[in-house]
């Protein structure tokens, strides 16, 4: 009997932990989400931060036909969210707490200066079978191919008591045979390339592919490494890109929900 009271006590303090509305949940202001680059950034300033950026995520549009182009852009698919560009140019670059930064279109991850626009999924480009088949139940298999275990832990957290992605019928499963698609983390190492392909082949069609984290999308800080083999990505088409280092569970869940 005493035992039961103990558990009841623990549960009472545990309370309700789940985030009631994942679609409108707000993270504290210091969270590093979608950056905004002010329109009055100068070319010289843009060049400084482009040089500073550890992963070459900032591109400067130099030269003649600049009049119709933004001064610079920041690629969230490469960015490791170190925020150094902001520290170097406070007021010109600012990371907001907007965690909804996933898209099905690679180009939509590129944030241009002077253009404040949310990152979103383009509904017209979502494959029809994704919405018709997976809308109400989606089973995913995760493959880590050189991931550093941070994105993996955040994917685990998607299913925990706080985020409870299962409420939408989205779940990670143990076997690729039971899955509707793969979520890939890590820059895809040479040593994992074959296993990834085998795992992909084992998923029944139609299947979807999600790249989770900047390493997976572009190689991230490892993009220049001689130990990668990203050929797999040339053979398949990607359905969703989820940037982050690692992506926050809210970024992952909202990204997937926007796709479905």
């Amino acid at each position, binding site marked *: 009997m005493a035992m039961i009271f103990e558990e009841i006590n*623990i549960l009472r*303090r545990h309370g309700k932990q789940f985030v009631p509305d994942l679609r409108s949940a707000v993270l504290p202001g210091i969270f590093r989400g979608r950056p905004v680059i002010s329109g009055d950034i100068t070319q010289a300033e843009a060049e400084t931060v482009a040089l500073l950026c*550890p992963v070459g995520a900032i591109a400067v549009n130099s030269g003649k036909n600049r009049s119709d182009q933004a001064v610079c852009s920041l690629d969230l698919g490469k960015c490791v*969210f170190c925020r150094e560009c902001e520290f170097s140019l406070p007021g010109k670059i600012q990371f907001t707490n907007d965690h909804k930064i996933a898209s099905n279109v690679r180009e939509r991850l590129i944030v241009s200066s002077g253009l404040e626009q949310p990152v979103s999924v383009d509904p017209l480009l979502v494959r029809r079978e994704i919405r018709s088949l997976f809308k109400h139940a989606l089973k995913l298999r995760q493959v880590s191919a050189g991931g*550093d275990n941070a994105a993996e832990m955040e994917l685990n*957290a998607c299913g925990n008591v*706080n985020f409870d992605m299962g409420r939408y019928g989205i779940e990670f499963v143990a076997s690729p045979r039971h899955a509707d698609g793969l979520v890939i983390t890590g820059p895809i190492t040479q040593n994992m390339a074959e296993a990834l392909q085998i795992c992909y082949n084992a998923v029944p069609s139609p299947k979807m592919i999600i790249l989770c984290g900047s390493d997976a999308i572009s190689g991230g*800080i490892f993009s220049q490494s*001689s130990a990668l083999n990203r050929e797999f990505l040339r053979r398949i088409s990607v359905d969703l890109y989820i940037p982050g280092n690692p992506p926050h569970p809210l970024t992952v869940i909202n990204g997937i929900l926007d796709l479905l």
Partner: protein
Amino acid sequence: MTDKRYIEIVTNPGTVKLEDIPVLEYTDFVTFLDLVMGEEGTHCVAYFVLPQPGYYRFICCMAADENHALLVFSHIQHIDPALSLPSITAKHFQFHVFEREMHENFGIDFAGHPWLKPVRYPFDRADQSQVMNNYPFYSIDGEQLHEVGVGPVHAGIIEPGHFRFICHGEQVLHLEIQLGYQHRAIERLFVERSGILQQSVLAESIAGDTVIGHALAYAAAIESLAGITVSKNLSVERIIALELERIAVHIGDTAALCTDIAYQFGQVVNEALRTIIINTTQLWCGNRFGKGLIRPGGSNYPLKPLVIGEVLKNLKEVEERYLQVTARIFSLPSVLGRFEGTGKVTTMQASLIGAVGMAAKSSGMYRDIRWSHPFSAYGDLLYEPVMLHKGDVWSRAMLRKKEVEKSMAVIRELLKEITNYELRITNDEIVSPNYDLQLAPSSMVVSLVEGWRGEICHVAITDDEGRIVLYKAKDPSLHNWMALALAVRNQEISDFPLCNKSFNLSYCGNDL
């Protein structure tokens, strides 16, 4: 120093000139090593090859825990494809992984090594005919034996690795672990990407569950090479971050251990507690794992009063609830039935394989860098490690609980020392990171940190212009994977997931 056979490093991190590291004949090197290994608590933290024009320089760093020092010495061999040295592993088993690494990278033979097998299949390995698919697994012939292969892709959301069991019925006779799937050439990238900011981001990505541990080992190494010291406040902040990381992972592991024995109550309560801690880190620096928090020379996120208040409030909340739920967990017969006596590693085994961190402390070894080679704010703390003796899953679970309590006490102690934030601004005490540090030429730095898994060791060597030409990053997992292999011997194969989780070793930390 009268003994000319070694140079002593008494600080952590510590930098020495390469020319000051004694070079011994190989036979003298081995004799001296035998002598050093005879001392209680001495173990090897790094043994590696520095390639030079025409010759290899083998540098060995031994930690003398009782003396709180490092002994460094070396030997030199001409580059020769047929180079073969009498193996040290044959006498001192903990060297097995260092000699295997040198064999894999350079093709050097170690005569008498019992187990000269691949460590991680680096892209530039000496023998390119060794590939993931032809690992030389140990096998036993027998009509009643069977083999079970698991991985590289596992059932859960975890990193890849291959486990090959030889079983007699349900009983595991032998487990061999093949790693390398996660190899990203990190050590090479440290040399190729010379910017300190790039290297800081790399250090944070060695193992994403040990962001603070590895970033701190790197930052301290760079600061030592640059000859700078950081403020007392910054050292204190770094240790608070390190202990928050330890608390978060230990609580997360408590949850995961409950998952593996299907005790859902323990799982969900602990998961929620871990969330509170990592969200505190996010409130501090904007990232739940502390990426971006540790940088050489300064910090982008000085600890402000608001965050200090949150840390104290959340620690109190989590401590009360964690103690409540662990009291329950460790008193349930159904939990104890699975934890007690499962996956034993004896003190003798742990000491033989050179186990570090949790794997050592739960098997009766007094091994903790915070005590033996205090770094950063630990210099003034006189930390006493937690130690347990039984070496089973219960010990590794209980160690986590006890370390969580200790880390919380350490943070509270340290927070008292953080002086007034406003005062620090007016005194210009808050310094931004420095990415333009000039490093000492022709030098070697050794930087040790006790991460939540155990001893992290980073070594960097510079050329005559102060550029890094060699970087060695060692995660404690490099030693401790062998502890897991030993733990499951004679266990039921169904207890493997529980044993595995009780160590929670890093794949990417091993594969680099």
